[in-house]
């Protein structure tokens, strides 16, 4: 039991690290590159499509493989998201997120990766993002 929880934490650490390296190698930690992808009517940079496409394909294969597994390697169960409804909450939330994403070019993953970049503007964004997360949690609460 104890070994399993340690393996679990170690696996999460390694995966977070590789996730971050992927963002850095692809350059998607750079808000300017992300905004270039969103700038379809201007100097469009399609790179994000290659990054996301490649990531989706690799994950889709792993997800398919997991169908043959009873449980994950270091935990007791697969936690597949249970929400199924297409509602105002989903679309409204994605809309607000998209607006914020377009304003600066940062989404949560790259923002966290850039914490140690030495850029203090990133830290201000991260602080505001954490506040936004908590405001939504206390004002509206988790989706059911």
């Amino acid at each position, binding site marked *: 039991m104890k070994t399993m929880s340690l393996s679990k934490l170690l696996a999460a650490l390694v995966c977070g*690290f590789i996730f971050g390296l992927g963002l850095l190698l692809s350059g998607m930690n750079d808000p300017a590159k992300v905004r270039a992808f969103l700038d379809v009517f201007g100097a469009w940079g399609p790179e994000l499509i290659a990054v996301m496409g490649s990531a989706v394909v690799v994950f889709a294969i792993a997800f398919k493989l997991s169908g043959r597994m009873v449980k994950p390697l270091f935990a007791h169960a697969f936690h597949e998201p249970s929400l199924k409804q297409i509602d105002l909450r989903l679309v409204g939330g994605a809309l607000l997120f998209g607006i*914020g994403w*377009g304003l600066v070019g940062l989404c949560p993953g790259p923002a966290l990766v*850039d914490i140690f970049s030495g850029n203090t503007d990133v830290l201000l964004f991260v602080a505001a993002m954490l506040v936004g997360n908590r405001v939504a949690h206390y004002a509206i609460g988790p989706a059911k």
Partner: protein
Amino acid sequence: MVNELLGGALIGLAAAGLWLGIGRISGMTAVISGLFAWPEVQRRWVYAFIFGLMLAYPAFYALGGSSPISITSNKTLLISAGLLVGFGTYIGNGCTSGHGVCGMGRFSLRSIIATCTFISAGMATVALMNLIGGAL
């Protein structure tokens, strides 16, 4: 284009590892919310995940890589964007990683709709900002 494809594959590999290893979706939104749920033993993995994620930047540079960033220094923009991203991702239950990579990889209709919505909203926002002459 090679770095983009390889980088994307690493992201997919990390998400695959977290799913096959501990049965969790690599969604940054849930990871951030999980930070505030620290008494729950079930969600302690998020601390390890974020720690690994933050270590990547210094490690990448130590290995000789370089991935410079360029970001606005307008404080009003940074704060508004951060608030919108934090609030919106919580309400919509996911962002580019949870909906965009993992959700699309699971062929989840919710995630496909969310991804199309936030990409469209992002594109409209950038277009609008350019239209008003980058006055912001």
